[in-house]
Every structure is written in C-alpha cells, then in structure tokens.
C-alpha cells in the first residue's frame, strides 16, 4: 500500500536469513542503506583527501569545510581535551547527516527514522561518556549530580532530578532524532498521498506544501545531525571537564 505513510519505515529481509547464535541478523533494507551511507561518506571523503592541491577542488572544499565545522564544534563545546574524540564525533556527525540526507531521496530508506538505530547510537555514547567520566575523575564524577551553590535542604530533590536527567540523556538524544525523522517523512508521505487523491484539480495545494516541506526536511536533516553531534560534545565536556 503506497498510500500508507508508515509503510516507508517497514524493514524487510534482503537475501537469505542469517542466524548467529539464534539471533536473526539477516541483511535488511536498513542494513543496505547503512552500508550505502558508509560507502557514500567514504567515497566523498576519499575523493577529497586523495588530492594534495594548494587551491582545493569543490569537493575538497566541502570536505574540509565539514572537517573544520566539526573541529570547531568540538573545540568550542568540549575544549582541547576532547581532541582524541574528534574522529568519533566526526564519524557520528557524518553518519547521521548522510543517513538523514540520503533518506530524503525518493524510494530511499531513512536509517535514522528507526528508534532502535538512534537508541543504540545514543546508549553507546551514554555508556562511553559515563565510563570516560569515571576513568577521568573516579568517584568524583558523581559530583556531576550535585550542583554547586544549591541549599543543603534542596539537595535530595536536586540530586534525584539530576540523576533522572542524566539517565534520560540516551532516551532524549535518540527519541529527538528518531521522532524528527519519522514525523518529517510521514508528513511528506501524507501530503504526497493528498496530491494523488486530490488529483490534477485539487492536488496543487498539497504539492506546494510538499515542496516546502522537502526544503524544511532537508534543513531538519542537517540540524538534527548537528544537534546529535553537539549534544555528544556537551556530554563529552561533562565527562572531561567536571564543572559542577
């Protein structure tokens, strides 16, 4: 049913069923698009990195722009201590950005519109940052939950609130990206469906909306990748430079 706006998110198996210790890890359309994105990113970056010219080519400028953009972002939010994590944040940003952007192409699958994908990314970041915090500061990392300058009688409540907000980080991080992607694509599909159902006479209005929404969705695709990366930087900053 092409008209079902949720149909685009269906995951289906491509090729034979693969079982690993009783777990189904078959290759799916989601997996296919993850690999397509990875190869697109690698193709883009390799073609930019292979040449060594003083005056960069267009693609080189683009890749260097992305590089400096992420470098600046990580440096401004997490400081110079976060430099070893630059490759990770860069990879994360590129992966989410390409997943979002490729999803905007007709008939393409949006990898980041699945909660499981965004959640795995977010929980990995959360666990990694927590381990990093404890390795860097030992038990002192728990001071993160005790903001300075808070009256003592408020502390029990504040600590609970802080712990809940800390634990909800992976949820908020993953749900934000997933919900944005899913909502945007659903809306596009619904308006696309209206164009078909209203036909050549009434279809122009939803078509106009569709065009405007596509522009908005491209913006959202970039923005969500940026937000995902910058929140990772902020969490890294908490772990590296304990401020509370």
């Amino acid at each position, binding site marked *: *049913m092409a*008209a*079902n706006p*949720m149909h685009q998110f269906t*995951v289906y198996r491509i090729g034979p069923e693969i079982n690993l210790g009783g777990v189904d890890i078959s290759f799916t359309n989601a*997996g296919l698009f993850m690999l397509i994105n990875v190869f697109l990113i690698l193709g883009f*970056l390799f073609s930019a990195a292979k040449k060594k010219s003083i005056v960069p080519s267009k693609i080189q400028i683009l890749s260097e722009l992305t590089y400096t953009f992420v470098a600046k972002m990580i440096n401004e939010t997490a400081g110079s201590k976060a430099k070893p994590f630059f490759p990770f944040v*860069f990879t994360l940003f590129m992966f989410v950005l390409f997943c979002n952007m490729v999803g905007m192409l007709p008939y393409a699958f949006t990898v980041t519109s699945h909660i499981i994908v965004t959640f795995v990314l977010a929980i990995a970041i959360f666990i990694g940052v927590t381990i990093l915090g404890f390795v860097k500061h030992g038990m002192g990392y728990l001071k993160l939950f005790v903001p300075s300058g808070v009256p003592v009688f408020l502390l029990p409540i504040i600590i609970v609130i802080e712990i809940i907000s800390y634990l909800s980080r992976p949820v908020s991080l993953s749900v934000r990206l997933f919900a944005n992607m899913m909502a945007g694509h659903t809306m596009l599909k619904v308006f696309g469906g209206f164009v078909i159902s209203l*036909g050549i*006479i009434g279809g122009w209005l939803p078509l106009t909306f569709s065009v405007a929404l596509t522009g908005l969705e491209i913006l959202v695709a970039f923005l969500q990748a940026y937000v995902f990366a910058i929140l990772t930087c902020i969490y890294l900053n908490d772990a590296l430079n304990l401020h509370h």
Partner: protein
Amino acid sequence: MKYNFIFIKGLLLVCLQYNSGFAAEAGMPQLNPEFWPAQIFWLVVSFVFLYLCIWKFILPKITKNIEDRKSIIMRDLQDAEKFKEETTKKIQEYNRVIDDAKNDAKKIILEEKNNLEKELNLKKQKFDDEIDKEIKKVENEIKNFQLTSTEKVNEIAREVVNSLMMKIVGTEVNESNLKAVVESSAKKINQKQI
C-alpha cells in the same frame, strides 16, 4: 455535470482506498522488534567500519592537507614580505645611484664649462693681442708710408716744377730753392687739409 459527478466519485474511491490501506497497516514498523537485532548488528558493523576508515585513513590525510596548505601559504606570505623589503631597498639604491649620477653630471658640466670659458678667454686674449700687434704694425706701415709718400710727392712736384720752368723760362731752377718752395706749399696744403 456528468463529468463532475464521475470526478467526485473517483475522488471518494481513492480516499476510501487510502483509508483502508492506512487501516490495514496501522502502527509503527519501528516498534516491531523482529529486525532489531539485525539492525543493531549492521549498525555496529557499518559504524565501526566507517569509524576505523575515517580515523586511520581519512582524517590524517585531511589534517595533513590543511596543515600543508597553511604552511605553504605562510611561507609564501613570508617570501612575499621579504621580496617587498628587497624591492624597497633596491628602489632606494636605484634612487641613490640616479642622484649620484645626476650630481656627477652636474659637476662635470660645470667643470667643462669653466674649462671652456678659461680656454675661450685665453684664446680671446691671444687673438686680441695679435690684433693689437697687427694694428700697430699696420699703423706703423701707414705712418711710414705717409712719410715716404710726401717725400716722393715733393720730389715729383720738384721735377714737374723744374721741367715746367725749363719749358717756360728755359732755365734750370736752383735745387735748394725749388725744394724750399715745394715744401712750403706742401705745408700750406697740409695745413688746409687739417
């Protein structure tokens, strides 16, 4: 009217189909855990692969490219600054050489002018002297000529008088008398002329 009716009917049909389709596959495929392990597995595989490639191969190259470019541009800028300084120095030197040459030329011109003037004066002096000498010589010659010419004129006059007297009177006049008469008359003529 008929066409309009058919259109509305068609529209309704499409809407119905749309709604029935929506109803059939209601719900979010994202919440179906059937392919969660597969998605997690391929996500981990692709992300780790991408991370390793970027970390090991791509970022060092891009970093090197950017740093190389920065250092080359810095070097070029420094070179340009150096060349600029050299150019300024050369221009100053050039101006100095030109000024020196101008001064030298002026000096040489002045010297030559003086030399020429001196030489000219010398030659003029010499020429003037020569002219004076010549004038004096000519004056002397004229004087001599004047002296000798009166004597000759007197002699001619005497001879003429003598021969006239011979023809008129038939006698020869005394030489000394003749001389005295001719000289006195010559003197008179001279005085009249003066």
